[in-house]
């Protein structure tokens, strides 16, 4: 108990937060979009997967329909992210503050839609395996173990994608200087679309993994933002690697607070952490201008 529990359980939730925050940070770093609807993609991922799964399992085996609906959900939410970008964000892109307001309104709009369609009963994406393994004396259910493995794999893939592919290098170039990137012949608009897709898809995956462990309800969209903000402020706006490190720090902190006090205190603790960090370093740990 104690330290081992904080490290094991903290890395699991930290892995999920890393998926959420890296996408949030990527979009800000590349396109300077502060997307308050990011938590919505998280919640939508779980909802779309659940709806698809309940429809698809009439036609195929349970396990196959689950995997198919999870993959489909990630793509659908990715495309929703692109649609939101094209319809709502691009027209106001030169007014920084308006991006915040329009994405906040989109987040509340989707919350209303989810509330009227599904009520506020929490939902969970089903998980086919049941069982527990023991890691360093801490019992870990398979759901959480799979979540951690998937999260680490996807983050590693994201890191390779950004740092080792041609598109990734174009993304990096755009994030450093979008005008210079345009001058050397990079289609900046295409990069923005790719980045919004990746970001929304990562959030959807995180939402699916999260809902397999805990549960998601319409209000989750906004609550997730608190953690996403805490992480990007800690890691620095726009720094993807900083966000990944910060996600695990926040994950450890969250578990430690839940053990020491109660789970409902962890959001307040995250907020106090943000304020403490900003007093010391107003630009976060590894922030960009």
């Amino acid at each position, binding site marked *: 108990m104690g330290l081992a529990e904080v490290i094991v359980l903290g890395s699991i939730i930290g892995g999920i937060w890393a998926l959420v925050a890296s996408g949030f940070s990527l979009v800000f770093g590349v396109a300077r979009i502060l997307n308050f609807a990011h938590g919505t993609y998280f919640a939508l991922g779980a909802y779309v997967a659940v709806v698809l799964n309940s429809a698809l399992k009439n036609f195929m085996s349970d396990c196959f329909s689950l995997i198919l609906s999870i993959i489909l959900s990630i793509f659908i939410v990715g495309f929703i992210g692109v649609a939101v970008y094209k319809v709502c964000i691009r*027209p*106001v892109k030169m007014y920084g*503050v308006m991006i*915040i307001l*329009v994405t906040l309104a989109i987040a509340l709009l989707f919350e*209303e*839609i989810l509330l*009227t369609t599904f009520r506020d009963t929490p939902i969970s994406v089903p998980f086919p395996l049941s069982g527990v393994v023991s890691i360093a004396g801490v019992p870990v259910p398979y759901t959480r173990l799979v979540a951690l493995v998937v999260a680490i794999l996807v983050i590693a893939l994201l890191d390779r994608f950004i740092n080792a592919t041609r598109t990734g290098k174009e993304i990096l170039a755009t994030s450093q200087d979008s005008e210079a990137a345009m001058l050397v012949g990079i289609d900046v608009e295409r990069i923005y679309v790719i980045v919004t897709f990746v970001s929304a898809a990562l959030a959807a995956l995180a939402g699916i993994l999260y809902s397999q462990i805990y549960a998601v309800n319409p209000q989750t969209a906004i609550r997730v*933002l608190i953690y996403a903000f805490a992480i990007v402020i800690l890691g620095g706006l726009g720094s993807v690697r900083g966000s990944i490190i910060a996600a695990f720090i926040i994950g450890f902190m969250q578990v430690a607070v839940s053990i020491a006090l109660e789970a409902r205190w962890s959001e307040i603790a995250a907020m106090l952490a943000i304020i403490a960090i900003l007093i010391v370093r*107003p630009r976060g740990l590894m922030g960009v201008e």
Partner: protein
Amino acid sequence: MHVRIDAKYLAAAIIAVLVALPFTASTSLLYMLGLAFIFVVYAVSWDIVAGYTGQVNLGHTVFIGIGAYTTALLNTSRLGIELSAPVWLTILAGGVNALSFGLVIGIICLRLRGYYLALVTAILPLIFIQIANVYSGVFGGYEGFSVGLGKSLATDLKLRYYIALLFMLISIAAMYIVVKSKIGIKLRAVRDDEELAEAVGIDVVKYKLIAFCISAFFAGLAGAMTVHYRLTVGVDLFDIPLMLAIVLGVIIGGIGTFYGAIVGGFAIYIAKNWFFRIIAESLAVPVSDDFLLYLLLIALIIKAPEGIVNRVKAFLSSKTTKQ
């Protein structure tokens, strides 16, 4: 476009109509109008910071909520103390308490620029909602609690309406004096060019903080007034939908124009609580008034990001120059 209506006469005419209204209007309309007056103070006080210093404070509802809960707790025995102070004094206490929070939040947040300020202020209300939920024994959880009929501004609805109207007029006048004073000019200098303002010797941080405190004080007062007008307090006074409605009102009216916040705030409150409710009920699909409000907000931001009034002004001036 040379038909100029003197603003003074227009304002006097509107006030005259509002004063005469209780003699003809229904009680439900009066009740809603009173709340709309208080909402106007929310909007104008937000515009003081957003429109006059250019700082986007997305946590304005923190001040409203703090003002509201301060007076509500002072008027009930939920804190374990029985205080028999007059209601107007506890409302003032709500404003002062919001001001002190404004000072602390301002000192921390105003060092941050642009995006970081918006991020941090946006989560502040969520934290207060969480605290209200954790200590639900004191704060009444998500639902809040009632302060009791005896703590009403006035038991007669007409009188309550007049108190709300008077409160709005006095608050607007006070904030107008600030905006037109030397402080207001310096605030606008800070908004237009921070470095230039600093170069000509304006203490930028000090003036931002002054604007923040004025804004917090009036928001706190208005939050406290709301409690004694509708007799309940709840986390809705902290919540994001209220924040968005305030922002929407100011954007519709035109940010940083002062009268824009008054007109826009009033219009959006009436639209949300009256027209949208009627439309939502008449539609076949189950949508709420909030849903329509968010749709309108998104459409407005996409079509006219710099404020409808400014858009109309630009349109008119382009017409007149062509002639």
